[in-house]
């Protein structure tokens, strides 16, 4: 079984601070990490490899410094990695085509696993776009997977419905955070990951015809929260009275 995991290096959104004067989120100096749900995908890929044998390749798209983060997944048990350096301003269209091309160039790949979305942008585009570009089936939002030699079954969280789907290979799955708890690599694995190969591909060398973005990110503003922000404390008897009074004035007490 040849498995590809797509993993993205993201800023740790929990650490983002907002610049009080511009109201914009400050991204410089924020620690980076592998997007949480992509780690769930990696864990699932490694479990499938342990069950069915084979190889796990992790693909990431990003700057060269993503190399260090991607080693975390190599340490968990992936065998090798591909780091694609995208052109400036690349959007989901460009990036998904680069990933699809990299996978096609790898030869036979049976299973592609992605997180349902990355924690920074939470678009959820990458998985289905890659499946579309590769023209293979997709099973999204899987919270339980059973991979066998000839087919794979997934229980999927489709909102108000639980859908059980199966597919032959090749197929792409996106997983949710509930699917597993990613393992911690051992120290031996961390040290061993240094020797695992990371191939760097530069977009212009990849023979992907259309590298022009279809969506241009113009700006990221802060999100203005126009709230009254009245906080009551200390004297709780007074606090509940004040709150009830205000809610009543706002017509929120029916």
């Amino acid at each position, binding site marked *: 079984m040849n498995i590809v995991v797509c993993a993205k290096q993201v*800023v740790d*959104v929990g650490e*983002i601070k907002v610049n009080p004067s511009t109201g914009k*989120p400050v991204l410089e100096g924020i620690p980076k990490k592998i997007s949480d749900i992509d780690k769930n995908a990696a864990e699932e890929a490694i479990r499938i490899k342990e069950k069915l044998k084979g190889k796990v390749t992790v693909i990431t798209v990003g700057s060269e410094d993503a190399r260090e983060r991607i080693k975390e997944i190599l340490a968990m048990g992936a065998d090798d990695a591909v780091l694609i350096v995208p052109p400036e301003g690349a959007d989901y*269209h460009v990036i*998904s085509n680069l990933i699809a091309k990299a996978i096609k160039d790898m030869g036979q790949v049976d299973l592609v696993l992605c997180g349902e979305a990355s924690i*920074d*942008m939470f*678009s*959820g*585009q990458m998985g*289905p*776009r890659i*499946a*579309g*570009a590769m023209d*293979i089936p*997709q099973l*999204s*939002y899987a919270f339980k997977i059973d991979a066998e030699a000839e087919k794979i079954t997934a229980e999927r969280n489709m*909102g*108000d*419905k*639980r*859908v*059980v*789907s*199966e*597919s*032959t290979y090749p197929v792409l799955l996106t997983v*949710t*955070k*509930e699917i597993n708890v990613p393992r911690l690599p051992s120290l031996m694995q961390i040290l061993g990951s240094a020797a695992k190969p990371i191939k760097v591909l530069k977009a212009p060398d990849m023979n992907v015809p259309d590298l022009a*973005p*279809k*969506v*241009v*990110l*113009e*700006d*990221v*503003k*802060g*999100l203005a929260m126009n709230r009254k*922000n*009245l*906080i*009551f404390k200390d004297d*709780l*008897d007074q*606090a*509940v009275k004040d*709150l*009830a009074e*205000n*809610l009543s004035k*706002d017509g*929120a*007490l*029916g």
Partner: protein
Amino acid sequence: MVFVFSDNEKIAIEMLAKAVEISRELGSKPSAVVLGRDGQEKARKLVAAGASVVYLAGQDMDEIKAEEGSEILHSICKEVDPPLIMIGSTKTGKEIAPRLASLLDAGLSTDSRKLYVRDGSIVTERIVYSGNGVATERFASKPAIVTVQAKTYDPLPPDDSRGGEIVTKDIAPREYGSKILKVESMVSEGANVEDAQIIVSCGRGFKSSQDLKLIEDLAKSLKGYTLGCSRPIAADLKWLSEDHWIGLSGHKVKPKLYVACGISGQIQHVAGMRDSGIIVAINKDENAPIFKVVDYGIVGDLYTVIPKLVQAINEKA
């Protein structure tokens, strides 16, 4: 032709209101696609909601598979050449939209909360970095594709006298290696947080599931009986079913009044409730991030505050 599709009829109707408006600017017409059974009946509602043309396809499908849904939409788009496609942000919509975007080599922006035309380009806004920012994105592709969450737009009042064309398309999708084996309702307590007007929510501040009676009491006093919760309560502790889960990966809600009890206010949770009318929080940690996004807050132990608050509200009412 601006295109609207959702497996959720309510979102389709809401999106049509926007499609009507933006069609005028684009010199286009609002249209909709219905996939699956009972298409005629649904199509008439969409015409009443503003669609000039409704395409019916895949009428033998019980469930919409992403591969087939996107292939059918792709095929209609090829013929109609829409400048803009709006797809409802249900899970089904969100697995179809990117695949369709890939087939059309088109740009896609998910969970678009604003949509307008500037200098001939379609521009959209979406929340990024878990609620820390709003990204403005300009489309450089035709079509532009967006997904839209429930309640983003107000529907037009239905007008049964409105005329509209209903076109049946006979498109047989290819065979794919995937199939749906089983569909069942999620374990649900029947909560409908997305439509609720008053929501009282609980988080990690509660020590045991028995204590949720406190928020039930509060909900009763507020005359709203919809309970919500943050991620750990539904996903980890399973004190409430997932239909109560409010947040980025749970439900996004927009009630008139939202009361968060014992919820610290992680950005993922706030992303699910930030559009509520009035936001109230009760938390013992004054530095809890939730207090940054509220209209009213009480700093105090919820085990003390809630009973007092229930009494104070009952006295007011």
